[in-house]
């Protein structure tokens, strides 16, 4: 059983919602992993805002000012307080994107009507904490117990926050990592073994 370590939340500079000082991005291999998706720990049923703040350690100002584009299970999210994390779900985080369709995908975009058919509709906390959509038996459901979710980081968010997420714990499926030996058993893992990304 794994629980979240809230004490591990790091403090970043708050100016302008960006980390203080020039933060180097993650390594090329880690950047590739984040774009394809890594596994991280989360609390079932927490909102996406809480997931970013508590589970990933993003400063509140960074979430509000810089994480402009958010997807949950391939659906663009407008309300990060209403969209809830489920065991095994896929969360993707990005900065503001160019192009009309880039703008369409932003949170609370004035062009959100262009993507009505795919926008995230929100769900109940019960559903998110382990309901049918979550795969039923995937991971624990207690409020302090952790589950695994898949996380993708793109562009500026990857550059700004990738290293910190690695330090807090990010895992690859062993097949993706090209290694065989498991180093951790984690709740709700889709594969028998996961490899932790090196800090």
């Amino acid at each position, binding site marked *: 059983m794994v629980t979240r370590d809230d004490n591990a939340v790091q403090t970043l500079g708050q100016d302008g919602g960006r980390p203080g000082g020039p933060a180097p991005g993650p390594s*090329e291999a880690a*950047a*590739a992993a984040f*774009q*394809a998706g890594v596994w991280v720990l989360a609390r079932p049923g927490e909102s996406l805002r809480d997931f970013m703040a508590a589970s990933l350690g993003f400063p509140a100002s960074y979430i509000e000012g*810089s994480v*402009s*584009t958010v*997807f949950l299970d*391939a*659906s*663009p999210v*407008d309300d990060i307080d209403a969209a809830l994390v489920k065991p095994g779900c896929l969360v*993707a985080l*990005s*900065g*503001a*994107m*160019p*192009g*009309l*369709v*880039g*703008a*369409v*995908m932003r949170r609370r*975009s*004035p*062009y*959100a*009507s*262009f*993507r*009505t*058919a*795919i926008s995230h509709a929100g769900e109940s906390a019960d559903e998110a904490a382990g309901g049918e959509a979550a795969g039923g038996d995937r991971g624990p459901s207690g409020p302090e117990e952790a589950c695994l979710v898949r996380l*993708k980081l*793109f*562009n*500026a968010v*990857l*550059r700004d926050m990738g290293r910190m997420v690695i330090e807090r714990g990010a895992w690859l499926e062993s097949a993706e990592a090209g290694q065989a030996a498991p180093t951790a058993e984690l709740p709700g893992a889709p594969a028998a073994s996961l490899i932790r990304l090196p800090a």
Partner: protein
Amino acid sequence: MDTIVRIDVGAQGGPKVRKEPVGSYAGYGGRALTSMMVAREVPPLCHPLGPENKLVIAPGLLSGTAAGQSGRLSVGCKSPLTGGIKEANAGGQAAQVMARLGYAAIVLEGAAPEGSCFLIYVNKDGIGVENAPQYKGLENYDLIEEIKKRYGEKVACISIGPAGEQRLAAASIACTDMEMHPTRHAGRGGVGAVMGAKGVKIIVMDDAGMPMRQPKDAEKFKAANKAWVEGLKKHPVTGSGLPAYGTNVLTNIINESGGFPTYNFKQGQFDGASKISGESYAAMMVKRGGQPTHGCHRGCVIQCSGIYNDADGKFLSKQPEYETVWAHGANCGIDDMDAIAMLDRLDDDIGLDTIEMGATVAVAMEAGVLKFGDAKGAIELIKEIGKGTPLGRIIGSGAAVTAKAFGLERAPVVKGQAMPAYDPRAIMGIGVTYATSPMGADHTAGYAIATNILKVGGYVDPLKPEGQIELSRNLQIATAAIDATGMCLFIAFAVLDQPETFQAMLDLLNAFYGLSMTNDDVVALGKAVLKAERDFNAAAGFTKEADRLPEYFKREAIAPHNVTFGIKDEDLDKVFNW
């Protein structure tokens, strides 16, 4: 910039150059000028490759000035690809140089004698036209190398490659960038075929001795430009995202949304997307000594272009744009950065629209000509076009023709033009624009500026599904107006989020021309351009049935969201009810 140059390529005794004042075209630039001129002067029922068609090349209203991002060049004609009116635009140096030389437009008219290969040379002393058969058949890169030997490296060029000479419907017109690479293309609609039909291989422009265009109110212009540039630099997209990763920063995002057309629009996500993303390209460019942050013309503030080197560190192509990466990448099942960059290079060299080519190669893959994911085969297929083989001529005629030639229904086109990189089933609002734009399927037709700033047609609730019709209308109106300025469309990101930056753009126009334009004037200009374009198409035989997506987009759901295009035809017919 108060002169229009008309060159009758079929005149008795050789091409005849005639200059005239802008006259009734005063106040128009870029797309506004090209579309108004085509609408007034080209018979809508003419053959696009015939003598009655005209090729109108026009810089924007602010091109050649100190205004940031003002280097867009518009090219207009009746399109050989769609059969309707066409405006395609490009970056590069040409618009700035043409504007400084004082020309509001260069218009190619008439029918060139068979076998013509004209070079047009423009400088401060005038315009000359010569037959230059030594350039016939050259690809764009080799052509520009020859031009550099003769005219030096400070000229700007507008040229066609073998595709344009073959008058193929997917042929583009190339503009040189700051390094004199022919990398910036007016790509869409086969404008290169019309230039080929006029027998013109290249226009070389030299603005030596010509000063920057001066505003009527220098102080106001300077202040407006300062606010304008500051607005672009402070916005996270134009100030950070685009310079760092280029337009291809969109690949990961659109793929994540499930709206990234893959395998000829069969699914909305591509497993190899992260391998060809803007982030991955930027890392590769740095590793190989290229540049992920680079402008395509002087005065560019955003710097979203880039230089992509091959494995040996030698220049291969510009950083491929998002549309190119999608078209030749996901849509063809190719996840190899070098292969996509090579396809980009070949498109530029042969003179082809990368969107149309990616869509067409995918259609050929579906037809079994080659397999999805076959990068080598795709490269060879594009080379066929340069060689002028029968297969190459089919591919070079675009996705609709290729699907017909191979007996396929699944051609992702509207009005004969291939859809760009956003699936209209997942992102239905863009499908409204694809369907109804006078240009055929075009992602840039409805791009700029929100209803909340311009207040076109009243307030639209962005969360109401029915807002898609109104929003598409408003975006198309605004974009038509912005296309008149010569401003790069990427300004849209800063303009739509920052009303003060939109105001700065208006202030630039007002200070330069001594005007007092308001939002209402911008809206009126956009509407006038769209009306002229729609009227031309109607006279060319387009009915409301042309404003539709192919039926299979209503029938075949796309994963992962399993949605079909659900906008009703009667709603599409309301887009231009204003």
